[in-house]
C-alpha cells in the first residue's frame, strides 16, 4: 500500500527545516510503500507518531487493567493447577503491558506520564475490562473469547510498520498462545462437568460474547481513523474483516465445547465469503467507553491505589540508587 504525502509539511518552517522535513517525508513514504519498518529515530509525520502513541499506550493500559478481572479469581481458583496457570497468565499480562509501554516510550513519552494519564482517567483502554468477572467460568470465557479476539487483532500487528510495536507484538503473541488455550480448556472441563458447571460455562459465554466482538472496534463505516492506520501499515485488516474471521473461528470451536453462542444470526455469507453475526449494541459500547460500564470506576481506583501505595517504595529505591552513586563517586 503506497502512501504519498499523507502529512502535509507545516508552513511555518525555515527553508532549511522545510527541506529536511520534505526529505524526511519522502524517506518515510518510501519505507511505508516498501512495507518496511520505521524505527524510533527515523523522521516520521507527527500524526503517525501520535496515532501510534495513542494506540500502543491504550494497548498497554488494556493489558494492565485487564489483569484485574482475572486477578480477582487467583485466590479462589478451584484447583492448584488452575491457580498456577491463572497466576502465570495474569503475570504475563503485566509483562505484556511492560513490553508495550517500552515500545510507546520509544516515541518520546515516559511511562510515568502514560500511567498518570491512565490514573487521571484521560487515557482509554479496552472497554471489555469494565465488565465484572463474576464466576470461575469467566476465566474460561475471558481466555477463550477475549484473548481469542485480542490474538486476532494482534497477530497482524506483528507486521505493524513501527518496528518496536511489531517486535513487542511478536513477543506477546508467542506468550499469549497459551492464554486462549487455557481458557478454552477451562470451559471444556466445565462443559463436561456437572450440570451446575455447564450452566456456569454457558452463562459466561453468553455474557462475554458480544463484548468480545466489540473489541474489534466500531463497524468500518463508523471508524474514522482506520483508513489512515491502514495506509500507514499499522493496521492490516479492517475492524469488520477481523470480527468476521473471529466469528468464523468461534462458530467451530463452540461446537467442540458443547456450548452455544448467544447469537442465532451467525451465518456464512456465500456471496461475500464472510461470516456474519447478529446486531451488536453499539450504544452500550459507547456508554462503557464513556465511563458508564459496571466497573470503570473500580478498575481505575484499583490502579490508582496500587500506584499511590507504591509511591514510597519507588521513591525509596530511587533515593537508595542516588546515595549509592554518590558513595561510588566519593570513593
Amino acid at each position: 500500500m503506497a502512501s504519498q504525502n499523507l502529512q502535509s509539511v507545516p508552513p511555518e518552517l525555515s527553508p532549511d527545516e522545510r527541506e529536511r522535513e520534505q526529505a524526511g517525508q519522502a524517506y518515510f513514504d518510501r519505507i511505508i510503500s516498501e512495507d518496511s519498518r520505521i524505527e524510533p529515530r527515523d523522521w516520521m509525520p507527527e500524526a503517525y507518531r501520535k496515532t501510534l502513541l495513542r494506540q500502543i499506550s491504550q494497548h498497554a493500559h488494556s493489558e494492565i487493567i485487564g489483569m484485574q478481572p482475572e486477578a480477582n479469581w487467583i485466590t479462589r481458583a478451584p484447583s492448584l493447577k488452575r491457580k498456577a496457570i491463572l497466576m502465570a497468565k495474569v503475570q504475563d499480562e503485566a509483562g505484556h503491558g511492560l513490553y508495550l509501554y517500552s515500545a510507546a516510550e520509544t516515541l518520546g513519552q515516559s511511562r510515568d506520564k502514560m500511567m498518570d494519564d491512565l490514573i487521571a482517567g484521560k487515557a482509554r483502554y479496552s472497554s471489555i475490562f469494565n465488565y465484572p468477572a463474576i464466576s470461575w467460568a469467566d476465566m474460561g470465557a475471558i481466555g477463550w473469547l477475549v484473548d481469542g479476539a485480542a490474538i486476532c487483532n494482534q497477530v497482524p500487528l506483528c507486521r505493524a510498520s513501527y518496528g518496536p510495536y511489531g517486535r513487542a507484538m511478536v513477543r506477546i503473541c508467542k506468550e499469549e498462545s497459551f492464554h486462549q488455550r487455557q481458557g478454552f480448556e477451562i470451559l471444556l472441563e466445565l462443559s463436561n462437568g456437572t450440570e451446575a458447571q455447564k450452566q456456569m460455562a454457558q452463562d459466561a459465554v453468553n455474557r462475554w460474547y458480544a463484548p468480545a466482538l466489540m473489541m474489534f472496534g466500531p463497524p468500518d463505516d463508523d471508524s474514522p481513523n482506520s483508513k489512515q492506520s491502514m495506509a500507514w501499515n499499522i493496521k492490516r485488516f479492517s475492524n469488520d474483516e477481523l470480527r468476521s474471521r473471529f466469528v468464523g473461528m468461534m462458530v467451530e470451536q463452540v461446537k467442540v465445547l458443547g456450548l452455544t453462542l448467544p447469537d442465532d444470526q451467525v451465518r456464512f455469507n456465500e456471496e461475500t465469503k464472510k461470516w456474519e453475526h447478529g446486531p451488536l449494541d453499539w450504544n452500550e459500547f459507547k456508554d462503557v467507553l464513556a465511563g458508564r460500564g459496571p466497573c470503570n470506576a473500580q478498575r481505575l481506583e484499583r490502579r490508582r491505589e496500587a500506584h499511590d501505595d507504591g509511591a514510597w517504595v519507588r521513591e525509596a529505591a530511587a533515593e537508595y540508587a542516588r546515595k549509592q552513586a554518590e558513595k561510588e563517586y566519593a570513593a
Partner: protein
Amino acid sequence: MNTNAWPLWEVFVRSSRGLSHVHAGSLHAPDAAMALRNARDLYTRRNEGVSIWVVPADAISSSDPDSKGSFFESPQGKDYRHATYYTKSEGVKHL
C-alpha cells in the same frame, strides 16, 4: 519530570551458550542490580536465556538516522568482499 521515576534500561539476552546477546527489550529499574533482576523476571520467564546484560538506555550512542544514506553507502557495490563474487572457482573442491 518526576525525579523518583526509575530510569530506562535496555536488556540483552543470550539464549544459549555460544550465541550472542540479543536485544530483548527494555524495562525500568532504580539501579543496575535491580535492572538485572527485573530483566531476569521479565525477559526469561520461559527459559529464554542463560545470560543477561542491562545497559542504561541513555548510555547507548547510535548512528544518526538522518545520515543513513552516506553512513552505510560505502559497502554497497563492493561485491568482491563476498565469496559469491568469485565464480570461476566455483565447483573446485574445498575452496
